[in-house]
């Protein structure tokens, strides 16, 4: 679902940045990617070249179903950055994806962020497409 047109663009991922470039390449196809270690099975996120659980450099990209729960959140009511100022109030949240990794994102698609968002709430990914990147945001499932 395209975001309603705003005057200022959100900050976008910047490249070259080899750790995260494959994540954002897949995001263009609305695939939410994470890495799993071939040696120990540990999950690596944010993306890196090395396993953070064992001394391994062999990681495989997987695609998440994009479903999870809100671990915690805040409703941002003040931000001097012009792009975020025109989006206030908005929700930032730690999302615990069902595959076992935690990521920062926004919770969108709610009428009143103060009353319609809660910890433990089930959410699913909702892609927002911009010229520079597709951003994985989350909406109540």
């Amino acid at each position, binding site marked *: 679902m395209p975001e309603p047109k705003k005057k200022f663009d959100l900050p976008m991922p910047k490249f070259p*940045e080899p750790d995260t470039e494959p994540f954002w390449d897949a995001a263009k196809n609305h695939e939410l990617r994470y890495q799993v270690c071939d040696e120990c099975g540990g999950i690596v996120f944010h993306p*890196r070249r090395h396993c953070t659980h064992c001394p391994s450099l062999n990681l495989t990209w997987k695609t998440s179903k994009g479903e999870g729960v809100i671990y*915690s959140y805040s409703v941002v009511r003040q931000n001097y*950055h012009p792009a975020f100022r025109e989006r206030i109030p908005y929700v930032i949240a*730690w999302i615990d994806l069902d595959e076992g990794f935690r990521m920062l994102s926004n919770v969108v698609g709610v009428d009143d962020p103060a009353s319609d968002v809660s910890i433990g709430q089930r959410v699913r990914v909702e892609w927002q497409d911009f010229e520079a990147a597709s951003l994985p945001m989350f909406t109540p499932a």
Partner: protein
Amino acid sequence: MATQTRDAAIVGIHEYPQRSIDGMTPLQIKAESAVRALQDAGLNWSDIDAVYDAGDGAQGGMAGLSISEYFNIKPNVIDTTSVGGSSYEFHASHAKRDIAAGKAHVALLTYGSTARSQSFNIGTGGRMTAGPPTPLGNMESSWGMTLISNYALVAHRHMHEYGTTSEQLAEISVVTRAHAMRNPEAKRAIEELELLPGVREITVEDVVTSRMIADPLHLLESCIISDGGGAVIIASADVARGCPHTPVWLLGTGEATKYSEHGGDITTSAAAQSGPTAFGEAGVTASEIDIAMIYDSFTITVLTILEDLGFCKKGEGGSYVEGGGLYFDKPGQPALNTDGGGLSSNHPGMRGIFLLIEATRQLRGDSSSQVPDAKLAVAHGNGGMLGSRHAAATIILGRD
């Protein structure tokens, strides 16, 4: 107590008194503070053989080198650990280590900032929007997470897990403001910086009805943005015994980092790792502490750190801070942030040095909210972002 080592002590301190500093650079504030701290310690530039610097005011990116030339010192130990507001507790920890190892005898820590004059929006600006690409910048810059909203993530989770309330968190702001009103420099800051709701003590009601900045954190739960600076001189036992003031010994130190982990608990901070190391080295427990100088970027920072340092159990911070036990004149609990803290005295961006300075004042008997016969203090610095990644160091201080 028998195993306690007394090999390094704070012998000189200075807190730059102004909160709005016209026409001075951070380097000048650092140097003036160093001069005043040297006068306080009865020492000279030539006595300094170790320098610790977080890179504030570094020229040409050369922290450690440029500061040595600016001061005209020739240190044998140069440490440029830079971990935000906790840098100065790391520096104190390293100074104790280096002095105990015989590598240094007189260590200088300085800080200077004109954050307010330069109108930095520390808590509510956009994050990671400038500079070269980084992995974390690419994963986090698009969501609009301000500094305060990051801390708010911890507050919400703490409320969810333990039933902590905004009214309980507000108690931290209330006691800190009361201490600030007793500190002439903090009181002047409240006036000059026109802090809400005016030059007076505040109530829980004032705090919870102040503007919501990032749910569930209100304006009066947030540190102020000021200019400022200071200096601390740490010396070996031999040097310290010849200085004019009572030595304030560094009895124990601990350091840690904390960052986001899958399934991790963000209501527990790095203090849970640094605290036991510091208390263990000092051979004391939280229940013996008279003065708690706890980094108060926001109310939730103090609440979680008090729990993590062992002043109360995890989850019981809300009831621990209720009832006024943290005032300087209430026995039974430690006195909290007796200078007025970052919430109501000064916060130029990296507040850690002021925790060491006020702890030293208390143990010398010089605080504006003096705890009678204060013997033991803890200074705990937290730098970075409580809800995602931060560094922290704990220093236990004591006098003879």
